């Protein structure tokens, strides 16, 4: 029993240490506050360790990021009272996005830490930001994002599309400068 627990701890620590930059980065991008991100990441790790026996062994990264996201939604989001936007239907995702009126009400994120990408993410409302982070930075599938955020896959698709549209608006000049977008194209 004792050895079993030690083995479990070692296995958990080995897996988590490798993925911890993703855990912390996601926590930081969601909370936009280093202090909150540290709390969120630590609490998520403790909860994951508690629930490690129930991990099905398939995708550890998706599993632990799901814990981070769920914890953020259930605990930190209410506390932070960040901008809330309900899920949009797929038609709504096609509507043009104005970056100016989507700025977050709190800029807790340390701008010194941010690049253009981080600042653009910061300007995107949290539901859409979460989808973009989990998909484009962490590489989770739609199904995994749906489980992490507890919404249907259709909502994930629309959030992702809308979040990317917002990012494109904000990053257009930067993307062109960096050669990711050709001049004259949106």
């Amino acid at each position, binding site marked *: 029993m004792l050895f079993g*627990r030690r083995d479990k*701890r070692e296995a*958990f*620590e080995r897996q*988590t*240490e490798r993925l*911890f*930059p993703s*855990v*912390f*980065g996601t926590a*930081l991008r969601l909370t936009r506050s280093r202090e909150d*991100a*540290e709390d969120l*990441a*630590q609490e998520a*790790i*403790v909860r994951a*360790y*508690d629930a490690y026996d129930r991990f099905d062994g398939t995708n550890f990264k998706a599993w632990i990021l799901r814990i981070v996201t769920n914890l953020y939604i259930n605990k930190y989001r209410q506390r932070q009272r960040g901008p809330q936007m309900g899920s949009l239907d*797929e*038609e709504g*995702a*096609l509507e043009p996005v104005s970056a100016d009126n989507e700025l977050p009400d709190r800029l807790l994120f340390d701008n010194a*830490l*941010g*690049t*253009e*990408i*981080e600042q653009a*993410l910061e300007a995107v409302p949290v539901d859409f930001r979460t989808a*973009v982070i989990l*998909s*484009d*930075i962490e590489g989770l*599938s*739609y199904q995994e994002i749906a489980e992490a955020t507890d919404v249907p896959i259709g909502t994930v*698709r*629309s959030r*992702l*599309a809308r979040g*990317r549209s917002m*990012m*494109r608006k904000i*990053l257009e000049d*930067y*993307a062109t400068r*960096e050669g*990711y*977008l050709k001049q004259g*194209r*949106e």
Partner: protein
Amino acid sequence: MNEFLDLHALADGELSVEQATGLKQRVQSDASLRREHEAILNLKDLVRDKSLKYESDECWKACVGRLNELDRSRKVNSFVSRYAWAFCGVLFAAIVGARFFVKDVRGDSVRAADIGRIFPIQGNPHAPVTPSQMQEYASLLNLAKQAVDPNALHLVCPPHQALMGDISITRLDLQDGHSGVLELYLVPAQVNFEDTQPLGSDPSVSAGVIAGNGTSLNCLVWSSDGRTLVLAGDRQEADLEQVRTELVGH
């Protein structure tokens, strides 16, 4: 299915083979779809390539610390829950053992107030005292190294005995020249009467009160030759001390 969302799904590899094939053909033939598709792919690359890799070592160390704490508390909980019954048993045994220990240590300690209660019935002053009882009286006092002038202090009724715990105590009801019966208790052991106080400057004699049949009597307690004597009567301590001095002195 909305084509705009399908373009994102195509870029994310989330379409079925059939859907992806059909959409790719449309993307190839439609310039605006192609531009949109490329823009999505480029944005994905941009976000992936240019997003920051945050320093997280300190936070990871804090997490390891939290996990260590968790493991420690789990170990303690597991140990306690597994051996809780044993703990209870040991605690119970310790309490019982302590009680026996205390009883054993304090076995030679009694309360003077209780000595009167074990003789609930007063001796009958009219009962004749036989010569053998007188002899017993004398020998008891003699054993306790007490001497008495039978004319000054005589037995008014036969000695009677009672048990205090496992000690057999003898009570002698005595009469001297004054009114009122004196009670002399002979305890065949060295006992400590915890509710008595030293009498004056003589630490070998202590004074207290014993409870009788609805009355309280002053008493003096002293030891002699491994026995304990208690002299009680409805008198002042000084008067009792005078009688005691006569007992010891003769």
